[in-house]
């Protein structure tokens, strides 16, 4: 199964490529006053409105050091389009094997959002559930 490999806080994350619509660079955002902290804002992608989720804030990590390029992965969950920020885009790769349940105890940040580990590119990557990330903590 094809996966998109990204990095969040130095962790290799795998997202099933079938669930990813596209990868975009964040542009001007419209903030949502009094929205949850991990809701970065709204952004237009052609005629659609994306809800931009700050993935680091969603799992309780401190904000990333500011950089010029901010990239995000576009997914659709329950009919709404979201852009999930990532620290870096790594690769699109075929998994070496089927996803496996997580053995061991995950760090608190990942416990709520990771649902499996995927062997890909010779190393394990954490597979996260976009819906859990969007819900925040």
């Amino acid at each position: 199964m094809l996966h998109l490999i990204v990095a969040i806080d130095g962790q290799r994350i795998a997202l099933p490529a079938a669930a990813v619509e596209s990868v975009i660079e964040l542009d001007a955002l419209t903030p949502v006053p009094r929205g949850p902290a991990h809701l970065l804002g709204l952004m237009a992608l052609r005629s659609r409105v994306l809800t931009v989720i700050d993935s680091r804030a969603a799992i309780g990590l401190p904000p990333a050091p500011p950089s010029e390029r901010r990239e995000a992965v576009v997914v659709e969950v329950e009919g709404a389009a979201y852009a999930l920020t990532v620290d870096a885009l790594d690769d699109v790769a075929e998994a070496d094997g089927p996803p496996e349940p997580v053995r061991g105890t995950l760090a608190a940040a990942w416990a709520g959002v990771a649902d499996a580990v995927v062997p890909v590119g010779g190393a394990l990557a954490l597979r996260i559930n976009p819906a859990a990330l969007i819900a925040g903590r």
Partner: protein
Amino acid sequence: MDELMGDFIAETRETMEAIAGEIVAWEADPADRARLDAIFRFVHTVKGSCGFLNLTRLGRLAHAAEDALADVRDGRRPADAALVTAVLGIVDRIGALVDAIDRGEGLPDAEDHRLVAALDRRAPAPAPVAAPPPAARAPARSIRVSVDLLDRMMAGVSDLVLARNELARRFRDEDEAALERLTCTIGELREMITRTRMARVDSLFAALPRLVRDLSAELGRQVTLSIDGGEVELDREMIEMIRDPLTHIVRNAIDHGIEPAAERIARGKPAAGTLALAARQSGNQILIEVSDDGAGIDTARLVAKAVAAGLVDAGEAARLTPACAAGLIFRPGLSTAEAVTEVSGRGVGMDVVRANVERIGGSVALDNRPGEGVRLTLRMPMTLTIIPALTVSAGGQCFALPRSAIEEIVRADGPAVSVEQVGGATIATVRGVRQAVVDLAGLLALEAGPAPLLVLVRPAGGARFALAVATVLDHEDLVVKPAAPAVMATGLYAGVTLPDDNRPMLLLDPPGLAIAAGIATVDLAGPAADPAPEPVATMPALLFVALDGAERAVPLPLVERIEDVAADAVRTIRGRLRLAHGGRVIPLVADAALPGEGSLRVLHLSDGTAHLALAVAHVADIVALPLPCGDGIAVLDGRPVELVDVPALIAAAALPPPQQRPLVLLADAGDGWMEMMLRPMLEAAGYCLAPPGASPGDADVVIAAEGQLQQAAPGALVRLRAANEATEGHEDSVWRYDGAGLLAALAARTGGR
């Protein structure tokens, strides 16, 4: 009804085409459960629709086939060849009958009985039937399209708008005709797609005659139903969302409103009660009125019940006006029916009706006349997706507000407005009416800043409050989309919209703002307490104070936006005012002298083709202006208001067409004196100057210096002389510094044009 029938015919044909293959496959393998289910669903659907549309013959056929197939599904009967043949016969017959209905013809029904009889398991096996030859079918005039596809088409058009805007920015200085055409085409396309979402209210009213007939029979009432305005169009989704509320209202009217015949006669009313439904369009809203001539609401009993149920305390109850008391029927948990009946009176009803209608941005108004009847008015926006909105800014961010909730916009420092701090609360008094002030930037935890404008908002079912904002930017029709759950969970927003600049904008939810600000009070009266407005023909208009101090109004749809421009962007060109604005020069109209410096407030007016800026002293209000009774004067709150005649302004502001202005040729001695000294004066006076070197014959009049052009015809010649005194033989010449004399001479030569 016609539309429902059309839908039914289209749907039945579509399904028949889809299951044609299933039928053949089922015939080959009668034990195939999936095929059997598909055919069962088809006859079941047809049966259901027939009951609704009162097509008894079709219904009988479908019902017979459904019974037989149900037996097969339940294993009470084998699917033998005889049954398959009989069912196929019925399916074909349904097709033939549908075609006949479409053509408006009849078919003999002896064949029906034979087909139904053939279903009987004791019937002798009939000869297999061949598919009937396809009957000549009227070409389909409608197709069914999923709403999802329409939404995607709409999104495509929105993309086109954005692409057009981008093109317009890049080709700003190029020929604009092609872009204009593109804009027009896209606009038309958008309107057409919006229209495809619309359906006639008929489809909502179609089921009511039957409902009224059944209910009146059940309750022993005599009711005459009158329906009007079925041709009014409404968004399809909206129709579905008010179907249940409307049914509730009709049930209530018959159950609680219209009295039994004997009682009516005793009260001197006709034995049969009247229930009238009327739909009409009013601006961007659709009104549906349901009125009956029944007993009306017994407010005394209603209030007593409300007190008993603990909804209001006795002291409060005593102060309720009759209208407020009648509005209690919208409170949950109240029902005036003495006994709970099958029809209504379970205490769920009007509160649910009101909630449903308000959820789609509408409102319900109640007009109760005890002893004479009740009139309920449902007001709804025409579509769910496009709403008229006001865009405002606060704390450096722009937001949209649904215009249906906005009553008025005033300046906090304006006349008849005072804002006071009382124990931490801010209260605005506008023309003697007090309301809470909610600072939008503060409420949304945005950067604080001056908020000099108060938007008076009345949320559906709540009390009016004043929303303080920094600026009011524009009013426009916005395409609203639902926002993500995390955004909606804040309770402050009703959706998100994408204006033409492609920056998403949040649509504020007025009731949510009131709750977040802690000022939401249950308004017992609510919109229901508002007296039903008299059906006076009105138009939305922008009220302003002109530079000359007079109050005037301009039709709101013509106002593109309100803007402050620098006074030095205004120039007088050939006697007309022009405003340099955004890279274009547009005509400006002012009633009085403009300030030479500082800024100037203008209304940008446009009918889609021509643009015009109108200088105003200040903008006063958005009002529903009664249509002018004549001479363009409307009466608003008892005072006359002049409605600006925009076409006349556009015509008056236009420059005189150049070809009609007299062409003047300057024939000087070759020293450039005339060019230098006369050209500005002549142009300002409205003459057009011929290019240097033009032939004197082309000009309407020639101004020549002494010694030049001796041969020109005297009628078209003005001769200038260098000396103040005329020399002999040249008395008609003009001293070259005598500007007034020159203009008079030109006017005489050109016939005063």
